[in-house]
């Protein structure tokens, strides 16, 4: 079913999509975000706004979405299952839709232990799979999660989910992706790719099951600022794989930041030219939004397609 999402339009037209990420601030001013949005707006099709990522309290994704929209970019609202029960989720998402947002990314969310409020209670009323399914049903069958009818103005989101080819069990990851597609996911953003070989094996299994023809997969990439950032991810983030060669390459580089950007561009070009079934890239420039325009341009992805 078609939505008003510009991202959906671009992807459904068969064009290679580009999304990026804006992390809201740990305070109540929208100034920084708006600045980032202005910086990115000609270079991306839409941007994610993270939802208390790593369970660190930040300005809310939906509120940030208002600022981003106002600055000229289409937001992708991220909603985790950690902080809200199904009542709050539906309520917030209807609000988001009323404020002009058209894309939602459904995810489980990092456990609160990682954040700055580890003593809080977590919710996890529904999981990401159920959220995808029920959001889809809200749109296509006009039903609240409880099954009650939505009489009018149902929220019609373009629904996204995440896939992590680098987590375990590897063999089951593709099956679970298929399950998410069955549930109703229409676009997928993967976890950052550093282990290209594993991603290629993943995509091979995806193509074998025909999943790439049913859903738009955007490959996640991240420019690293230096070998310490790489090392940190390698050792401290569960579910991510960073090959040692990458760490060494950054360590030996004269200008690590430039090297990090070069690596990211190489990855994007490689994926675009060699891995069939990938319909776009998702550039997660963590705390480095400024570098996204250069990455997009040097990867040959500029200018972005115009939509009505």
């Amino acid at each position, binding site marked *: 079913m078609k939505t008003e999402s510009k991202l959906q339009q671009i992807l459904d037209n068969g064009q290679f999509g580009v999304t990026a990420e804006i992390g809201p601030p740990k305070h109540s001013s929208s100034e920084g975000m708006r600045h980032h949005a202005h910086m990115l707006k000609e270079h991306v099709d839409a941007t994610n706004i993270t939802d208390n990522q790593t369970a660190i309290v930040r300005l809310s994704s939906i509120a940030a979405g208002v600022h981003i929209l106002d600055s000229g970019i289409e937001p992708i609202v991220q909603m985790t299952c950690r902080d809200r029960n199904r009542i709050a989720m539906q309520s917030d998402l209807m609000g988001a839709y009323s404020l002009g947002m058209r894309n939602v990314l459904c995810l489980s969310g990092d456990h609160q232990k990682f954040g700055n409020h580890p003593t809080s209670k977590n919710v996890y009323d529904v999981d990401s*799979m*159920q959220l995808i399914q029920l959001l889809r049903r809200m749109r296509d069958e006009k039903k609240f999660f409880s099954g009650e009818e939505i009489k009018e103005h149902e929220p019609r989101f373009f629904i996204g989910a*995440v896939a992590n080819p680098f987590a375990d069990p590897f063999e089951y990851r593709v099956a679970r992706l298929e399950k998410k597609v069955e549930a109703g996911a229409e676009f997928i953003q993967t976890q950052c790719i550093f282990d290209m070989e594993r991603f290629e094996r993943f995509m091979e299994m995806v193509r074998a099951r025909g999943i790439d023809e049913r859903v738009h997969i955007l490959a996640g990439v991240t420019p690293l600022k230096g070998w310490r950032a790489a090392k940190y991810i390698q050792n401290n983030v569960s579910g991510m794989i960073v090959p040692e060669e990458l760490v060494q390459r950054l360590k030996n580089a004269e200008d690590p930041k430039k090297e990090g950007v070069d690596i990211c561009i190489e990855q994007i070009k490689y994926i675009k030219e060699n891995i069939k079934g990938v319909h776009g890239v998702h550039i997660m420039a963590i705390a480095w939004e400024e570098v996204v325009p250069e990455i997009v341009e040097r990867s040959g992805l500029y200018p972005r397609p115009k939509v009505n």
Partner: protein
Amino acid sequence: MIIAQQKPVKDIAAMISDCNKVLFVGCAGCVTVCLAGGEKETEILASSLRIMRKLEHKPIETVTFTATRQCDPEYIVALDNMVQEVDAIVSLACGVGVQYLAERFKDKWVVPALDTKFIGGATEHGVWEEKCGLCGDCVLHLTGGICPIIRCSKSILNGPCGGSQYGKCEISKDVDCAWQLIYDRMTALGKLDKLMEIQPPKDWTKSRDGGPRRAVREDVMIG
């Protein structure tokens, strides 16, 4: 069974700091099995507190008793005679037992010596782990006998999440990823296709979220 652990001695001492005669009640049920509040632990606690109070030059008189269970009214009737002259009752039972004693001896200061932690079982002698989520609507037949509510840190019913790596949960290398275990078990059972079914959201009314719960067997009720 219920697994509990004793509070730090200092904390228990603080609760009865102005008491002169205290009754320590152990429980021969779950807390005996998990070595937290049985007869032996009760006597050790009483002895520790006697020594501690003597050091403070404020001796305490102690009486110890171990009930068969503290969660059945008929087993705590035996305490009626013992509570007359005590200033406080320290219960080494789980939270249930403490409440039963407080209920029966309304005019007595009843305090918990233990922190009731979870329901689970022993994995080796001296180690107990949480196993059951008390959700009130068991789904173990769908997950090869591994509870997704409590053994998955996010209570995911369609797992695993993206943080599962090398068979461990993202929150700690010491915690197994329940969904890795479920995947392995269902594969061994030849029932992997069951995991492709989308499990709907849980009805949490049957769990703690529905309010305090109650179970009844009408056919055995006397009154």
